[in-house]
């Protein structure tokens, strides 16, 4: 019978309240972006998106710190859309920021990571989903708690394959996020042996709030026969007006309908209801992907600080990338970082407005190391080299 037991391998930590206080400074750095205009007037992006998650996690880990004699100091730097992001980041680094949780688009994130003063800092990307940041543009000082586009679209492709919904068509938006999501989606379909029977570009400039019932049936009439209609509309502009107005009765998936996301207010299993309750109470709204990515980034730092008792970014990073690191994230299995590109392994819920339809990786999608690695670009295909020969 296979077994193992360890005695005092990690020296038993009996922590009395008198342990001397140590403080981990965590910097939240956010580049505000003016969102592209969308058709609906009802969908404002919450001003605290992301930051609300970081603040909640700081409270959670500070509670732990009360018992371990450790405390946290969360600094917040929010840079307005027209202000100089790098200048603000530099002055934050000059003030002593060494452990950063960043909400910024990929170019800003990379510029920050490449600053000479950021070498040796530990940066957690809690927002940008770009696949390049985990691939050719990966940086050794950047870990990612936001899921990549590829992880999300792989989750959706697994679901389509499992359902055997093989006849697929796509309506794609043209904003940069749409293009990134579309590219990831196509890669995922290929990866799982699926393909598109047809594809159309969304280029209406009519007001769909009034015209959808007239325009969308015609627009979708010439799509080839399909089981499911995929939509790529990451900013949430048009896809909401497509549902129920299509020529044939088919479900939607992608950016609308069945959505693969890092988190959503409908996630409730595995104790998630407790996190949702805490978040709703603190922020007065539902927790979104960017909030969870920020929450889990700060929670990961707390876990690493608790276990290593070190504030040294290099020590924290080494521990976070090690096999010993197992993070509880209310998703039913331990989360960990891929030590070859710094991405947090995480299940991806496939959600509707009201429920989790499935949680990827789906049963039957196997992997030789960790089933979570069936989501996203895997080590053998990854162009990321900044993490050395970890793989």
């Amino acid at each position, binding site marked *: 019978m296979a077994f193992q037991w360890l005695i005092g391998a990690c020296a038993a930590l009996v922590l*009395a309240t008198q342990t001397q206080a140590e403080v981990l400074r965590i910097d939240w750095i956010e580049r505000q972006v003016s969102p592209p205009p969308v058709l609906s007037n009802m969908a404002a992006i919450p001003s605290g998106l992301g930051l609300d998650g970081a603040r909640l996690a700081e409270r959670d880990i500070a509670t732990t710190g009360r*018992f371990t004699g450790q405390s946290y100091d969360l600094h917040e730097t929010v840079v307005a859309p027209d202000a100089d992001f790098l200048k603000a980041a530099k002055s934050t680094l000059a003030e002593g920021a060494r452990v950063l949780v960043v909400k910024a688009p990929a170019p800003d994130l990379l510029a920050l990571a490449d600053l000479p003063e950021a070498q040796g800092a530990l940066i957690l990307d809690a927002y940008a989903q770009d696949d390049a940041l985990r691939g050719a543009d990966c940086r050794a000082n950047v870990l990612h708690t936001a899921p990549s586009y590829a992880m999300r679209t792989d989750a959706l492709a697994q679901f389509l394959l499992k359902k055997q919904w093989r006849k697929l068509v796509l309506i794609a938006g043209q904003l940069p996020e749409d293009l990134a999501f579309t590219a990831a989606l196509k890669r995922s379909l290929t990866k799982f042996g699926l393909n598109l029977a047809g594809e159309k570009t969304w280029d209406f400039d009519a007001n769909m709030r009034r015209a959808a019932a007239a325009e969308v049936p015609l627009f979708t009439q010439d799509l080839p026969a399909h089981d499911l209609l995929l939509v790529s509309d990451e900013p949430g502009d048009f896809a909401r007006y497509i549902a129920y107005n299509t020529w044939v009765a088919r479900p939607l998936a992608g950016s609308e309908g069945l959505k693969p996301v890092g988190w959503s207010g409908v996630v409730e299993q595995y104790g998630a209801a407790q996190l949702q309750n805490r978040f709703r109470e603190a922020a007065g709204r539902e927790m979104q992907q960017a909030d969870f990515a920020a929450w889990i980034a700060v929670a990961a730092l707390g876990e690493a600080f608790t276990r290593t008792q070190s504030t040294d970014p290099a020590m924290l990073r080494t521990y976070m990338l090690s096999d010993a690191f197992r993070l509880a994230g209310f998703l039913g299995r331990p989360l960990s970082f891929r030590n070859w590109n710094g991405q947090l392994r995480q299940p991806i819920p496939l959600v509707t407005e009201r429920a989790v339809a499935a949680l990827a990786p789906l049963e039957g999608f196997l992997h030789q190391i960790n089933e979570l690695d069936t989501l996203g670009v895997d080590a053998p295909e990854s162009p990321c080299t900044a993490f050395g020969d970890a793989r």
Partner: protein
Amino acid sequence: MIRALLLTTLLASPALADEIWVTNEMDDTVSVIDAKTLEVLHTYETGERPRGITFSRDFKRLYICASDSDAVQVMDPDTGKILHDLPSGEDPEQFVIAPDDRLLYIANEDDAITTVVDTQTRKVVSQIDVGVEPEGMGISPDGKVQVTTSETTNMAHWIDTQSHKIIANSLVDPRPRHAEFSPDGKELWVSSEIGGTVAIFDTKDQSQIGKISFQLKGVRPEKIQPVGMRFSPDATKVFIALGPANHIAVVDAKTFEVERYILVGRRVWHMALSPDQTRLFTTNGVSGDVTVIDIASLEPIDTVKVGRFPWGAAARPSSK
């Protein structure tokens, strides 16, 4: 459904047989199983989202954590009637009754608090700040130390029951779910769901004396998530429920060696021993049933269908 409930109420009577009581988290009911015939004798309604369940030491009262009703309910087990609620603090998930049969220690999951309630005066005696999402509740056989585990803080908090102050905090692997004292009071066992381990502490000085991990053929390590634990009647073995691994591990209480794994239903949570100590009943949340294990042979012998998401389990001996 209504007729069935009426019927069970009419038939309610003092325990004529050894019984196993199981909370059905998603049905807001408790199922009462005859430990011998394995029939479901009654299904009683409870408050919302019943989880923790325990009898008073004289078996005259049943306490139920009705988490979403923010109440600990007190039921007359002879009639299935809810007699009254105890002040419990918000979102009570799990609790433990003191050996004196009077104080109830309740984990308030949403509030990071352990609430101590006097079951006789129905008053809150004390509230103790613990870590985030307290859950596992154990009490030493002499009643002197209560241990609360906090799932998100990853600690076992040792609480002195005289002063109601924390005397020590032990860091454990991620998401500790359950704390169980050995019957002789010398050891404390703490299961870590996400860590996939069980840590064993010497209660004298709170030092860690062992750590168990599990390996099951054909089951991914990340699916092995230990939760509930029970000592065997002779205290030579510990049964450990492995959650989504769908097995109970049988561990030698001396060597901490895993002796065998018993296949049960899906996502096994907690356990109860039959009052005659020959059978072990496991709550299987996802499959909505209870597996019955013969303790002598360590073989599963039957499955009993209960409500949706069976969570906690408690035993009541026949009053004959």
